[in-house]
């Protein structure tokens, strides 16, 4: 395995054993950032520092964290910090490793964020399957309380913070921030209308910061070591390191923390040890099921927010899934659609009905009963969904299907070859009669 980083910023547990133990964590300068902030910095300085460091949201959208924090109104109380630990994009498993192996880093990040925005309560919202992850995390929280890093009057600063864990019931949609808030409030996990944005009226209609686990875990390093130290990693517009969850047809799948801007080829070949059996890369899903699929020729794309968009996809949450020649492109697209059909929350018609319809057509094609008409229909269905869905998750369905149609059309046609096209009269009944 190549070592690009001399020191992990977030995956510190890979450098230091037992860092989930609070004493080990403290010994490694743990909670020093919090001490520094509480003693030497005003809340607004923390926000500004994070803003200048250019830390961007690691949940997928890449929105600058410091800018998000600065939207929080000063004069409305209470405020909340909500941590999005509903890690449910297929192929993403980075937050889980942070919470299990280096939990205090996250807690310190939350405390810094809460201090910056003036919140005294924080909730970590995890997916329902995270029970085994939340047990050690709860242990870490208990330890932090005992050491005075959480609770009333932290380190004598007058700043208080409580952190509570909450497990959802296991729904992809609850990773969408407003659906997450609904779920946390005990409502149905469905997205809310925006505006108002969570920064204005979020949890219980109060100003709320929602950040991903990895985003907040990046904060302590910035506060402790400064902007320049952080900007040493990554590119100018995508500074810092990012954890990539590599999976699919590679020899060494797993999480890899790399500076942003690292070439994709490095991740696949150096970190992942190349494709199984030395096969060719056929497709890359750089951000899970929601990805635009990139062809194998895009391996030299750099892993940062801008380069990935230029290459026609996006960085997202960094869940890189590698397809090789043994994988059928239609089958892979259908797997994604099965996922979306299962996870559509049902709030808006295009996503609820569109995913259901797509699954129906894909099943027909993969089962060998499809026709050329069906393949064409896939294109029109996603066209009808695009731009019309209530929340981004409905829109996420579109790029995967569209790029798979573009990249693997020959496989689609092969699957439907020889099947008769339906010969029923395509008569426009309404307009015949009226």
């Amino acid at each position: 395995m190549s070592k690009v980083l001399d020191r992990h910023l977030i995956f510190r547990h890979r450098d230091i054993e037992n860092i989930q133990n609070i004493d080990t964590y403290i010994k490694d300068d743990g909670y020093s950032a919090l001490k520094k902030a509480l003693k030497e910095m005003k809340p607004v300085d923390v926000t500004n520092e994070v803003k200048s460091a250019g830390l961007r949201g690691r949940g997928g959208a890449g929105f600058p964290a410091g800018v998000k924090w600065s939207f929080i109104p000063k004069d409305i109380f209470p405020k909340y910090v909500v941590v999005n630990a509903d890690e449910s994009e297929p192929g993403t498993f980075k937050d889980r490793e942070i919470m299990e192996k280096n939990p205090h880093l996250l807690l310190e990040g939350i405390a810094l964020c809460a201090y910056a925005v003036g919140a005294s309560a924080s909730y970590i919202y995890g997916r329902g399957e995270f029970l085994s992850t939340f047990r050690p995390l709860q242990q870490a929280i208990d330890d932090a309380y005992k050491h005075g890093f959480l609770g009333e009057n932290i380190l004598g600063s007058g700043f208080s913070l409580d952190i509570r864990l909450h497990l959802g019931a296991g729904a992809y949609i609850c990773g969408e921030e407003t659906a997450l808030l609904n779920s946390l409030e005990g409502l149905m996990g469905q997205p809310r209308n925006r505006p108002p944005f969570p920064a204005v009226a979020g949890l219980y209609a109060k100003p709320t910061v929602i950040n991903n686990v990895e985003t907040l875990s990046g904060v302590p390093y910035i506060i402790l070591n400064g902007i320049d130290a952080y900007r040493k990693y990554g590119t100018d517009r995508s500074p810092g390191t990012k954890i990539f969850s590599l999976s699919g047809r590679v020899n060494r799948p797993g999480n890899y923390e790399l500076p942003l801007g690292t070439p994709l080829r490095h991740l696949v070949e150096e970190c992942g040890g190349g494709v199984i059996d030395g096969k060719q890369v056929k497709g890359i899903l750089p951000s899970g099921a929601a990805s635009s699929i990139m062809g194998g020729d895009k391996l030299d794309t750099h892993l940062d927010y801008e380069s990935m968009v230029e290459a026609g996809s996006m960085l997202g949450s960094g869940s890189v899934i590698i397809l090789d020649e043994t994988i059928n492109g239609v089958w892979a697209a259908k797997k994604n659609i099965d996922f979306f059909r299962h996870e559509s929350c049902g709030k808006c018609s295009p996503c609820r009905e569109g995913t259901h319809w797509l699954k129906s057509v894909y099943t027909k094609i993969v089962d060998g009963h499809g026709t050329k008409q069906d393949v064409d229909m896939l294109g029109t269905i996603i066209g009808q969904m695009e731009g019309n869905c209530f929340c981004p998750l409905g829109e996420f369905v579109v790029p995967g299907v569209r790029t798979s149609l573009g990249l693997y059309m020959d496989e689609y046609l092969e699957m439907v070859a020889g099947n008769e096209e339906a010969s029923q009269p395509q008569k426009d009944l309404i307009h015949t009669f009226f």
Partner: protein
Amino acid sequence: MSDQVTLTIDGKTVTVPKGTLIVEAAKQIEQEIPVFCYHGKLSQVGMCRMCLVEVGTPMFDRATREPVLDENGVQKIGFFPKPMTACTTPVSEGMVVKVDSGAALDDRKAVLEFLLTSHPLDCPVCDKGGECPLQDLTMKHGSGISRFNYEEKQHFPKKYPLGDLIVLDMERCVICTRCIRFQSEIAHDPVLAIENRGRHAHIVSYSDPPFDSHYSGNATDVCPVGALTTKDFRFGARSWEMKNVPSICNHCGVGCNTVLGTRKGGSGTGQLKRVMPRQNETVNELWICDKGRFGHHFNESPNRLTTPLIRQDGQLVESTWADVLPFIGEKISSIKSANGSTALGGIAGARLSNEDLYLFQKLFRQIIGSNNIDHRVGLNANFEDTTAYTVGVGVGTDLSQVGKGSTILVIGSDLDQEAPILYIRVAGASVKRSAHVINIGGRRTKLDAQAQTSAYYQYGTASYLVLGILASVVAQGLVNQEWIDRHATGFSEITKLLQDFAPDSVADTTGVSSAEIEAIAKSYAEAENGIIIFGHEAGNDPALGAAIEALAAVTGHAGKPNNGVIAVLPHANSRGAADMGVVPNRLLGYLPLEGEAGLSAEQMLSGNSIKGMIIAGADPASESDTYRECLQNLDFLVVQDLFLTETAQLADVVLPAKAVAERDGTFTNLERRVQTFDVGIDSPLLAWSDWLILAAIAGQLGADWGYASADGVMAEITQEVPLYQNMAFENLVAPVSLDRQTDHYIYEGMSFTADVHEGIQWATVAENEQQKITLQLVVPENHTGSDEITLVTPRILYDGGRLLAETDVVQSHVFQTRALLSSVDAKKLGLNNGDSVTISQNGTAVNLPIQISRMLNEGTILIPRNIEGRPAERLVGSSDVHASVKVKKS
């Protein structure tokens, strides 16, 4: 900044108030934007995506904030990259909206195709067919062919009973959640929800019993597809076959505007197929309760009286009008000459129209010469209100507009049971518009959940409490002296009396602390608008009426819109009965009676001075054994009614009357709004309108009235009753279109446009600069606390009333005779649900099963009025509301 915003929709300019949604702005220029989930009365969710439009806003340079101009010097419009939902996007200055552009039309077609992928397309057998937004919008915007694989359609049960009144066909549902939002936001019965997600999502009811709400029928109206249908109307008729007739609900005093959907049957006679709400924003908005919707079957009941009956050899036998009318004339004349006119008396129920009641009192006062008339029997027995005359809510009052800065004081009324639509309007004023609703009663009621303040008094002390509030208003210096000087006299006299009722002194008696009383007084007096709503549970107490009148007057909360007093009267025309002077001690229009007052209903029915009676639309025999005995002993009894009631069974002559759907007339609702209802269906051939029967009897007694129609009677009322001078029929009927209007049912959920403020309120004394209110207080009777259990007897919606008994679908909702007891008392007495108890008071005892209720306070037992066996009336008497009783396990 201006409060108006100008924008362009498809090239047309429209100016609307700031904050208006695009969909509403478009409606103003009659540009229809199709919707499913949007409903003007509900919160916006933007989930059906049907209303997607292209939206652009004027472009400004980011750095300089200068407008960006095109080559012609016109400011450029920047369109949003994605279409926007017109139902959630508010307008902004200079906005450009494209509704009928190619892209927007494509989006609409796309969304419709999605919605139809799993829709069963069973329009030919669907009750919504013909008035279905999905059907109409598909015709307008949809594709004519179906691309979805038919075999893959989702299947759900086709007739799932969501409650016992509402049937769900989940296959037709488009998951717009209008029904769920109606139940939580308007009805405040959040009993519906979505279960599961994605395409498996379906509507469920979580309550027990399922869909436990008095408003469930409205969910079928707001449903934009045929997913929700009522058990009553299901497969009953096609919407286009029906003739729609404007009517007024006759079940309570609210006066909801309704539409009778009638159809000519095979025999050629009209059939009443359904009752739906008719929009009137000042009365019922878009809603009616389930009793009003389903309780119409009495009109066409096979049990109706169809011909006059006359007693021969002890039996009632069929007769003819030609035979019975002269007989009635003879008998009345002979009693009059033998015993004098005061031996004759009459009782008219408050369900009769103003025209009937006017002629009823005219017959007795002018032709017979007796003041022995009354309407206060049955549910009306313990409740008559005259505060409306002086300080009733001002003309133009509209509870749907009452909000922030207003205080609504609800005293002694369970609105959800007694006047359901009033309940949702008061609850809405509180929850949606932030009015301060103060719910005061002897027990917890549903309104407590929406009221910001609740207070509980000991039964029998409501008048003390109101006097305490009044004393506190005076003590805190919150009186409106200017208003008092202009409109009232006697203020200084009442202040002396109030010294005995300071909050401190009434706190112990009432059980409400002086701090609470002071806070209530302050909120009410300082409010911009103040409304008092009081009901019969506060007690049949002259001291209460006087105190409420004084409270409204000294705070100046009278004589103007959204201020004043509403009495929650029981019947459709209880207000009209009081207006028409169907009481022994007062004339028409609240004018004083010169000379001796007549006998009240209670006096007539418990003494022996009355020899002959006419009873119209009332059934006193059913409520008391004393009454029954008295009626049996009469020399002559005429009853006019729809059914052979217990009273009619005692009569010498029974006359068949027309039901409300078969005739026209006017009702005056509890806000004093006079409203007309129209003829919807044919009556039994020999049934007559009550006013016509009364005119015929008068004719037999020598009068020559010559009324030809109900509006002819009203024409005379306008001459005789100054309060009613503007109530001629032509003034009461605003131009209402009951033609089906597509856009109206797409947006509002019903077929008929009628955004009217129909009906006319008569003006109170407070609104009349020439008259003054004489403030007078009545000292309440001494209240002695009791260690015994207090029996309370409220009105309920689904009671054992004769009219409701004819509707089969609601029979399971009708209150099964039992008593409700608090869990504390049940424990003390060692009782479990269903155990039988003996409740006794002054020698009367009844045995009833009990149900333990968490809504009751310790020391209270509840039996509703007007239920099977009339146990409540037997224990407390007709005219009382509560009594101390002994309860023991039997």
